[in-house]
Every structure is written in C-alpha cells, then in structure tokens.
C-alpha cells in the first residue's frame, strides 16, 4: 500500500519504523526529538507493539541491547546529551553484535549547548564514540522522505551485519514538515537470528544461548581467542566499508568547485548551487548519504582530477576532517562552518546566500 502523508521529520521516524516491522521503541524525552517518543507512545501500543519510556538514555540503549538480543527489531532516538549517555551501551551492542537502530537528532553542543539544530555529533556518531574502537553505519537523511526510508534501510543493514546503525538527523530535519510517500521498502532476504536468546523451549537448535559483549563466554557465537574475535570484527567492518558506501552527486559533471554537505546544509547548498549556476559559476555537490563508511573514493578521484572542495556544515568543522583525509593534501578544502550562520543566536542557519558568497570568493 502506498499513501502520501504530510508530517514532520521526527514523525517520519515512527512511520519508517512501523513499515520496517519494528517491534519496540525505548526512549527518553530530550529536545529537539520529543515528537519521536510521543509518536511511538501514541501509535505503538494500540498496534500491539512495545513503547517504554526509560529512566534515562543509559536505560534506553541498554533496553535496545536486551530487545535486540531477544531477536526483536528495536529502535531508540535521542539528541546531544542523551547521545553522550548512550556511548557505553553503543559499544556493548557493537561488541555483542546486536542489530538495532538509533536515531540521533543533532542539536548544538558542547555540553548543554543549545536545544536547536546543529551538526556537532558527526565525529562521535561516525568514530564509535564509546569505549574500545567499534564501527557503525551512519545514514544521513536530507528530507522527510529520506528519514522514513533510511529508518527502514537502517533496520535492514543492522540485521544484515548484526551491528547498530545510526540515522543522523538534526533539529531542522526533525521539525521540517514535508509530504512523503509511505511504503514498506523491500531490501531482500536476511539471515535468521539463530543466535538470539528466547528461552530454551523456543530454540530450534535445542541449545542454550548465551550472549555477551566480549569473546570467550558466548557458545552461540564462540570465538577461540580475544584476537580471533577482533579479527572477525575487523573483517566485518571492512565488508561494511566496501559494500555500503552511498552518496548523491548533484551538478558535479563540469564543476570547478565541489561542495560537500549532508543533512540540512546539503539542501542549503543545492539552493546556493542553483543561484551560482544561474550566474555561470560551475559548482556541484557531493552529498554523503553514509557518513560511515565515508565516500572517500569518489572524493579522492575528484581531488585527483583537480577539483577543489568547499565543506558546508553546521559545526566548527567535523566532516571536513574526513574530506581532508580523502583528498590527502592533493587539493584545497575550505570550510564554511557554524560561524557563517546569518545571526549569532542558536536558532539561526547557514543560508544559501552566504554559501553563494563563499562560492564566489573561491571561484
């Protein structure tokens, strides 16, 4: 069934989860993502699905650990400070290889920072912000449609790799209202969750299952040594990095300057590019859809071809590090960051006119 709806980005998280067959939501209120737990509280129990308001984000993420371990599709959502609290749990979930989805609606930091939009959790989302060095796929939507679609894709990728997946939204993507097409997306077959804990009477293999965020004591997964466990993780992360890179190219063919932006600044950048093109300026956009794995290859190729880069991001500079690593010093990478907002308060934005001004300066 396909149907068009007009909703907020935050509510599209709920519809995406519903269409993905999600079994349970566990979350704690925090601005600017409160519409997400409120949507689940309204829509899930009446459909026989689980909604739990946890006592903290530490609680939410450990509830995901339990729900995922029991073989269910589970999701949570949060913002800056709550994301900080979830780092411990993210590491345990990645270590125990449990599939689940975390929607992170970014707000301004550091600390309590601001309750309004920003893009300041890029590094902690893409680098495995918790203890011990794990990896997780990060998907960056730039429309309400993509929020809905990427939540479904996130569940698929989580199940495919037995790994947590982050959908990295922001305060503007969360609160913007747009029309979108609601549908269940088919991604193909997934392996059975033979490792889940269900109670012995529900196990097809008749074996006792034990899950742990460490090697050695988990007969259902069973690694012989610490290093063989790490080696397995390394192989899995390489497989994800090889297979799951996604990005969008916009007017990049003949461009002299390539913008790199994700989330709301990618929308702003597209507007700026339209304005620049009307003035004859050859400029395009690479929009990373997966922030990890990062589209390093295409950026490196473009750098080799002599393109220059302008990163537009609503922070002091985070994704710009990945662009600089990709180009390896072969070309210039400029940054238009949070200081380019049109007013100095926390609710303002980087506007297309300001991006155009920077394009003109560079070309």
């Amino acid at each position, binding site marked *: 069934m396909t149907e068009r709806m007009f909703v907020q980005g935050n509510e599209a998280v709920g519809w995406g989860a519903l269409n993905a067959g999600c*079994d*349970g939501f*566990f979350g704690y209120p925090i601005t600017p993502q409160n519409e997400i737990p409120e949507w689940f509280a309204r829509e899930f129990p009446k459909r026989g699905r*689980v909604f*739990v308001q*946890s*006592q*903290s984000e*530490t*609680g*939410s993420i*450990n*509830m*995901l*650990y*339990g*729900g995922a*371990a*029991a073989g*269910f599709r*589970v999701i949570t959502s949060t913002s800056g400070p709550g994301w900080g609290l979830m780092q*411990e*749990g993210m590491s*345990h979930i990645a270590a125990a290889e449990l599939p689940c989805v975390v929607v992170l609606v970014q707000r301004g930091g550091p600390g309590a920072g601001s309750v309004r939009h920003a893009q300041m959790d890029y590094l902690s989302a893409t680098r495995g912000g918790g203890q011990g060095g794990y990896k997780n796929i990060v998907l960056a939507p730039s429309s309400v449609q993509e929020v809905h679609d990427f939540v479904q894709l996130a569940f698929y990728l989580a199940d495919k790799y037995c790994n947590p997946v982050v959908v990295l939204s922001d305060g503007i993507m969360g609160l913007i209202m747009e029309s979108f097409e609601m549908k269940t997306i088919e991604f193909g077959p997934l392996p059975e969750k033979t490792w889940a*804990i*269900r*109670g*012995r*009477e*529900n*196990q097809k293999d008749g074996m*006792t*299952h*034990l*899950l*742990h*965020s*460490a090697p050695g*004591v988990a007969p259902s997964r069973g690694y012989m040594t610490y290093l063989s466990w790490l080696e397995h993780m390394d192989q899995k992360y390489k497989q994800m990095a090889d297979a799951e890179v996604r990005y969008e190219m916009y007017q990049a063919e003949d461009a002299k300057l390539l913008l790199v932006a994700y989330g709301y600044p990618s929308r702003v950048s597209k507007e700026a590019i339209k304005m620049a093109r009307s003035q004859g300026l050859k400029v395009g956009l690479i929009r990373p859809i997966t922030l990890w794995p990062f589209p390093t290859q295409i950026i490196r190729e473009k750098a080799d071809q002599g393109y220059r880069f302008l990163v537009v991001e609503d922070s002091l500079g985070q994704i710009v590090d990945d662009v600089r690593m990709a180009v390896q010093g072969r070309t210039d990478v400029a940054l238009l960051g949070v200081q380019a907002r049109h007013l100095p308060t926390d609710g303002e934005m980087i506007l297309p006119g300001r991006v155009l001004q920077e394009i003109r300066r560079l070309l």
Partner: protein
Amino acid sequence: MSDKSVTKVRLTAPIVRSVPSQICPGCQYWTLGRLFAEVLQELNIYSKTIGVIGAGCHGNSTAVLNIDSILAAHGRAPDVATAIKRLRQDAIVCTIQGDGDCIAIGAGAFIGALTRAERLTMIMCNNANYGTTGGQLAPTTLMGQVTSTSPGGRGTNHDGFPTHTAELAAIFKGVAYSARGAINTPANYQRTKKYIKTAFRKQMEGVGLSFVEVLSNCPPNWHLSPLESLKWIEEKMIPEFPLGEFKNVERI
C-alpha cells in the same frame, strides 16, 4: 538405596551444565546456583527462563544453569531485562546482580524498573564489598568494615551508611514481593529457597516485580576462612541486614 532416605533434592532435568570454576575457595555462589537450579526445576520453568546477569562474581551462580542468558553492562541488567520481558511476555525473566551492580552504578536502572513495575524477578547478592575488583567499599559495606577503599573502616572518611535494598524495594507500589535471605546455614538456605520460589511465582502469576536480596560471603576479600566467613554473616551482617519478607502481596 531407597529415595526415601535421600533428603536433599535431586536435580533431574538437564538444568545444570558443566563449566570451568571461576570462583574462589569457599565462595557461596555455586551454592546459590544450586538453589536456583532447585527452584527452576521445582517450578518447571527452566526452559522458558532467560537470565540477565550483571557484572561481577555473582554471574557464576547462573553460569552453571542450562538457561538462555545474557551478560549486561555493569549496572544495566534491569534495563536489559525490561526490554526482553516487554517483548517476550511468555518468558520468565530474571536478573542477578551484585550489590554494587544493583544499588551503586545501577541504582538508576534498578529504581527505573521498580517505578515502572516491570514483571521481573530480581536477585541481588550482598557480600558487603566489591568482590570481583578486589574488595572495595560497596553501598552495603558495614560500619567500621575495612575495605581497600575504606582503609580506616567505613565511617572514618565520610562514606555514609549501609544501604538496605530489600526494604527500599518494598516501598514501591509496583513491587509485589521483597525479601532478604542468607545461605550461611541449612535452615537459611531452605528459607531463602522459599523466598526465591515465591519471587518467581509472583512473575508467573503476573502480580508485579519481585526482589530478593541474598547475603553471601567473600572469604578472600574479607580475609577470613570460609567457615569464619559464614560466622561473620551470622554475627555481623544479619544484625545490620535482617532476614525476612518485607512485602508479599497477591495483587497491586
């Protein structure tokens, strides 16, 4: 030999398994594992029981059980168990935690589960110190008790007073059952077995959350012989942590 001559319970179901020993000489955690095994067998629920194990030595008491289980991050067992029980309501979900896991680092998770009245059975082992990490001050450490982080004895460095977790749990409206037992004598073992059995029944009948605190020993960190440690429970711990049921209701 007739069965009538055997007074102890025989474990018949494939409920225990052989695992390497990770506990210290004289530790009671396998005794507690035996107690769990008897209860799960007598209630015939072992095949639908899911154990959620905290971080600490107490995990050894469930490691011997042939049940599906998961090890939680330190203090987070109530959160992990909450999700499992909400999503799989026909399962019997039981947490086992130490005192530090439950009422120090995991206090928020513990109170959260009590507040939401989760249909869980929660066991907390109280050995008055942090056993796994080498005997540091715990919320349950007795006044004057010397630990590696209360070298002058508790009370000499503004380290507060022992926490009474079973009494605390009983205050919560959503708690159907709260008790404290010990396993230092055969009589206490039998009494505690009754408490834990009642606690599981509360979950099976869907009444509410059930909690049992179990006083247990820690000979190496207490610097006592196994037998002396049992005497220490009787003479020092039980006067501070009285045994008995603090709440037992049929309906909330």
